[in-house]
């Protein structure tokens, strides 16, 4: 599979702040790729460099095979971009925005446009400036989907939206997932988990890891060991064990490279035979909370 987005050692400095510190990323074509991380991690900066809104201090990025510093004009005919920070022309009605943008895209699909208006329940005659935040995001998304873009880039699209609108946006996106690569930044992990195929975690401008969501979910387990008597918890535990804690006769930890046989062997080596062992799958949110707390996500 070729890459829709590829970055290599991308660095962005804002005076004394290092917003990105050597970001290397590979977004396969057809993926629904989520870039997650806490506020200020550098997600928006990375996206703005990809969209040629900002220039990188060093390193390079390619979007659909084009150097990101050349992403402009006709290159944007196959890229859809929606951001929570985007300033839409508030004086335009929804209908006029779509009619105006129609002239910019040779592949604009009038039927799809009508379908999206219906799907998102958009009021065609209402000015964008008079719409709620959720409606504005839906209008922006409709205007970015109606030309069948090969790549859809979304910067924090779900922030501040009610669950119903989030659901509508996600459905609208997933309907296009077959024909597009979707690259979405968010810190709304609950939503990301429902539709992302890949996930990358960015923290303080550095990529902690990037992998397929299924493999991530597979390799993280919450482990709970129950003993007859409180066990001695050693100072040194395997590197892949995170947040090791004990409470009377129960020891809990998170294994970030879970393998049933190997984990069982490690437990036996350190604790002997627990009375009971449970391996619980983790949600994406729990995984990221654990990593954020321990700083050992890339282990």
């Amino acid at each position, binding site marked *: 599979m070729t890459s829709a987005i590829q970055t290599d050692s991308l660095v962005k400095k804002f005076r004394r702040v290092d917003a990105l510190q050597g970001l290397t990323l590979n977004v396969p074509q057809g993926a629904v790729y989520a870039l997650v991380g806490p506020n200020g991690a550098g997600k928006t900066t990375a996206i703005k460099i990809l969209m040629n809104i900002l220039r990188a201090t060093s390193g390079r990025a390619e979007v659909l095979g084009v150097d990101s510093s050349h992403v402009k004009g006709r290159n944007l005919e196959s890229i859809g971009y929606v951001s929570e920070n985007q*300033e839409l022309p508030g*004086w335009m009605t929804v209908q006029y925005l779509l009619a105006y943008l129609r002239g910019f895209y040779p592949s604009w699909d009038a039927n799809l446009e009508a379908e999206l208006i219906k799907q998102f329940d958009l009021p065609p005659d209402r000015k964008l400036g008079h719409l709620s935040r959720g409606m504005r995001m839906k209008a922006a998304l409709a205007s970015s989907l109606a030309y069948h873009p090969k790549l859809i880039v979304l910067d924090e699209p779900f922030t501040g939206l009610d669950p119903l609108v989030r659901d509508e946006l996600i459905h609208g996106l997933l309907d296009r997932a077959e024909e597009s690569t979707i690259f979405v930044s968010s810190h709304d992990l609950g939503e990301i988990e429902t539709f992302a195929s890949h996930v990358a975690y960015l923290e303080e401008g550095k990529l902690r890891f990037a992998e397929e969501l299924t493999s991530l979910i597979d390799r993280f387990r919450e482990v709970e060991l129950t003993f007859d008597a409180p066990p001695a918890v050693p100072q040194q535990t395997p590197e892949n064990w995170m947040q090791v804690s004990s409470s009377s006769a129960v020891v809990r930890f998170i294994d970030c490279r879970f393998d049933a046989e190997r984990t069982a062997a490690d437990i036996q080596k350190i604790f002997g035979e627990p009375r009971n062992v449970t391996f619980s799958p983790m949600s994406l949110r729990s995984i990221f909370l654990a990593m954020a707390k321990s700083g050992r996500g890339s282990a």
Partner: protein
Amino acid sequence: MNQVWNIFRKDVRHHWIEITASLALVAAFAWVEIGEWSHPNMASGGAAILYGILGALAVPLTPVSWMFLIVRVVHGESLAGDRQFWVTRPYDWMKLLAAKVLFVMVFINVPLFFAQTFLLAKAGFDPMSYLPGLLWLQVMWTLLLLLPTAALAAVTRSIGQMLLALLFVALFAIGLSILSTVIPNSDFAAPVAAVYFPLVLLTTIAVILLQYCLRRTSQSRWLLAGLAALFAVVMVATPYRTLIAREYPAARADFPLQLSLMPPPKETHYELRNRIPFTVTFSLSGLPKDSFVELNGMILKLTNSTGQHWDSGWQSRGTMLFPDQKLVGTNVEINQDALDKLKTSPVSGDLFLAFTVYHDTKQRPFVVPQGEFRLPDLGFCSTTAGSFSSLSCRIPLRRPKFLMVSSEMAASTCPLSKDQIPPSPGQIARGFIRNDSSAPADAALSSVEVEGVSLVDSSNDRTSGMCPGTPVTLSNPEDAVHASVEMHIDSAWWAAYLQSLNKPKPQ
């Protein structure tokens, strides 16, 4: 082309109120202009007040409305900032720029062109004969107002930021004018203007292209700041004295004007400490009848016997000296502290006077007709009412380079008022219209200029009227020689002058 048209239509739809206001102002301006010609003699009454108010509003507001329109249309696809939706859409920068240029041409240049053409036609001139001048006016407004406004709009993202930028420009202009008052000689020599114009033109075009092509806002802002700095550097670093010396070389032996220094006045009064008036009077001779001179500027250099010196720097003047004049006076202010230091020992001085000699060519007699009449090479003129009647003329596009109107005061057909003393035979009054620019049109909003000519005897500032039937002589003086004349002022003259100085009156 589709994209250009698409953006253009969007801008028209978005800015129709601003467009309507701007067009209305252009129409109001034209209406007021025509009204002022139609009632040239109106001094009071409702119509005069109405035209006065509308004229006072329409003339400054029309360019302001253009500036506003440009700012709004450029900010429609703001080039500064990183949140505007259009930057992630497939805009072609050249097409975006073309759409904005088209908008400005359609709603500013074309209405201005039509208004100016209409004004020419209404003023009685054939617009087709003045096409180069009309086009020049378009170029001039574009270069002096529209381009700089577009450049500022390109580096700002809101009306608030634009107003702040304009405030900076205004403060900078005030700063430059203050600077010019403290830079010696800059008042007299102004060739730097020829440098400023290309600098502004190149920088504004560079900023607009840089912003539309690459959206490098900080670099563009630095470019504009660099232009401002360059202005100040040019103003400070221009070798004014060298330029003046080149334009006004020392007069040769055949210089047609002889000047003799008259004794200093018996008493010299002055109001302000540190600003002591130095008044000199010269007797004039040798000027041929078909010539006159203009005193363009002067510099006073003082030295005392211990070698201390002071000079006033070149200061501009504009005094006309005619063959029938016998005396002329002029003055310059001396710094009191400098004078106090100098006068501890005998002072002598040198006065350098920069002159332009004119040959009064193409002299032709003309009798002022009744009503409106056409004055060849000028325009349509009529006389104003009253005993000091003057000419009021509608001139197409540009004032003539130099038109002199002279008349023997005794020949005026205007009735004398009771308290007027009849003029002596041979007393000549003169008036003129002149234009230092050689451009095909003067820098104005209107294509028709209204210019007045009053006749004054410069030897005694007495006015003479031009009523129907008054014989006058029209001429087109041409400058023949630029030269500077040095006058030495000896220590005896200075001693007498210093004695004439009174203490300043208490405030």
